[in-house]
């Protein structure tokens, strides 16, 4: 069987590895993580030394993990959309897009390549920060598998953020407008998944059952990440904690009851987020395909020489 690395991934990694921007980016990333570590450590120190503290800092060091992880997730959520949002529009601005489209690469493999290279570049950053992360494990009592799950969760989140970025990149001609649209879309998607819950809370709260209004949250990357942390740190769920199941049957609809059972939500949410990401990538591929009906609708623009 013939296995070939996606040419776009290969090229992007080659080009990125050589640029000083990547080195400076890595340095800035590590600096922010280190700063979060120091701030977290000083906060833990002051809480341990405080009136209610027992003076044992080692028990509290485990809390450095969410501090560092959330700091990283925030940075990743900012970096990946910027990387992918400027990928297709960047190719168009650089006037390398047409040549790429005349090769045997399909629009979908181009989109996959762009998202993959952004995810891989971000993983370089995350891997680079593992020594700092590891400090909270060494003395905090967390197992190494948690670190592995954390990396997996970051990948899921990066793929999702990257797919929104690439979709916006396929919609916009200019990179800057693609970046702005990406953040707007990311924000709107987050809000949209909460809408049914808001409707229940502010409108029909007197009803006994919430129904299935929590299900759209399966597509919310922030809820996914929070749930992930709750499960890792406490073994409980942010959606409620009533033993094995998070809800009483009458409180929610049947699907919500089943999906919030134990750790089902985390895995299901990861699947839903990846599915949504795949859908965004499919739309992006359709958008960039010059022979698709989507391309037909775009106005012809005079090339600049």
């Amino acid at each position, binding site marked *: 069987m013939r296995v*070939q690395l996606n*040419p776009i991934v290969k090229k992007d990694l*080659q080009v990125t590895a*050589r640029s000083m921007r990547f080195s400076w980016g890595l340095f800035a990333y590590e600096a922010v993580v280190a700063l979060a570590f120091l701030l977290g450590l000083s906060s833990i120190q002051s809480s341990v030394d405080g009136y209610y503290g027992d003076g044992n800092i080692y028990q509290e060091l485990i809390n450095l993990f969410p501090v560092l992880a959330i700091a990283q997730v925030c940075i990743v959520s900012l970096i990946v959309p910027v990387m992918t949002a400027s990928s297709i529009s960047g190719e168009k601005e*650089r006037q390398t897009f047409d*040549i790429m489209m005349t090769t045997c690469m399909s629009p979908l493999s181009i989109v996959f390549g762009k998202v993959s290279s952004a995810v891989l570049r971000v993983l370089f950053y995350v891997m680079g920060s593992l020594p700092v992360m590891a400090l909270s494990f060494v003395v905090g009592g967390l197992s190494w598998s948690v670190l592995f799950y954390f990396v997996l969760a970051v990948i899921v989140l990066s793929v999702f953020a990257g797919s929104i970025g690439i979709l916006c990149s396929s919609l916009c001609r200019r990179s800057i407008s693609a970046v702005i649209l990406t953040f707007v879309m990311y924000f709107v998607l987050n809000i949209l998944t909460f809408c049914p819950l808001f409707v229940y809370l502010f409108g029909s709260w007197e009803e006994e059952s919430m129904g299935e209004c929590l299900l759209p949250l399966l597509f919310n990357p922030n809820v996914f990440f929070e749930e992930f942390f709750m499960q890792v740190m406490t073994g409980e769920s942010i959606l409620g904690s009533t033993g094995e199941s998070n809800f009483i049957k009458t409180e929610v609809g049947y699907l919500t009851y089943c999906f919030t059972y134990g750790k089902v939500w985390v895995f299901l949410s990861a699947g839903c987020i990846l599915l949504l990401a795949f859908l965004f990538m499919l739309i992006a591929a359709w958008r960039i395909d*010059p022979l698709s009906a989507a391309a037909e609708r775009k106005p*012809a623009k005079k090339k600049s020489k």
Partner: protein
Amino acid sequence: MLYINNLTKKYGAFTAVRQLSLHIPEGDLFGFVGPNGAGKTTTIRMVCGLLRATSGSIKIGNIKGAVGSKEMKRMIGYVPDFFGVYDNLKVREYMDMYGSMYGMYARETAKLADDLLELVNLSDKKEVYVDTLSRGMKQRLCVARALLHNPKLLLLDEPSSGLDPRARVEMKELLKNLHSMGKTILISSHILSELSEMCTSIGIMNHGQLITAGRIEEIMYQLSGGKRIHIQISSEMETAVRILKEHAGVVLESVMENEVIITNSGTDEEISALIGALLQNKVILTGFYKEEGNLESLFMQLTGGGEPS
């Protein structure tokens, strides 16, 4: 090699290409000429699969796949008029990247890239970053890149635009070389003299329509209605004029002191017989030549004076 049948491209109410039908035989070097907005680039982009045709069909060789299919893409090498390159990417890596985009192995690409870079005279630039190359070098690199997957048809959209005279000459020589290697080439250019030197056939477009297409000399002949011949005579001018007037197929265009210009629609043998008749009647000929039409005048005649692009 390339069969275009009733190709039309519309942007709303505007028709960029209208009912274009064209056949380019294998091994031909076909020049596409036309004023700005004539529809040349649109046609080339439709053949490449970069633009969806409103109607009509495009067929390359015996490939059954539709435009934009992998089979079709493998048959085409495309060189746009302007293209960008990536920063921090060396010439060797640039070729390798495009090789893998055509599904070629790195080793296979490396060997081919070496040969092609030598062909385009860039073998000493393999380890140089592409963004540091001159415009002419980038253009030649782009031709090498377009040839990497050994396409049967090479499409060049104004490859000489923006090049200095030396780079133009180099590009022309390169294209002649490729033609001699048997590649079928379609080139659009605004440098008509260059096209007339290189091309075996031309197609002239105006307002989205193909006005004429075929062998350059045939088009010239069709348009002029025959061969224009200058005959320089030092004596017996009256006898010469009489003979020429009597000769079938000869139209006397102008008679000057020592020169007569005629248009002859006959064959080369008939022209030879005409000269023989003049010499037999003691007319002293000091000069005789067939007027070679040029592409500029032909272009101006066909497009009604439109600016070539």
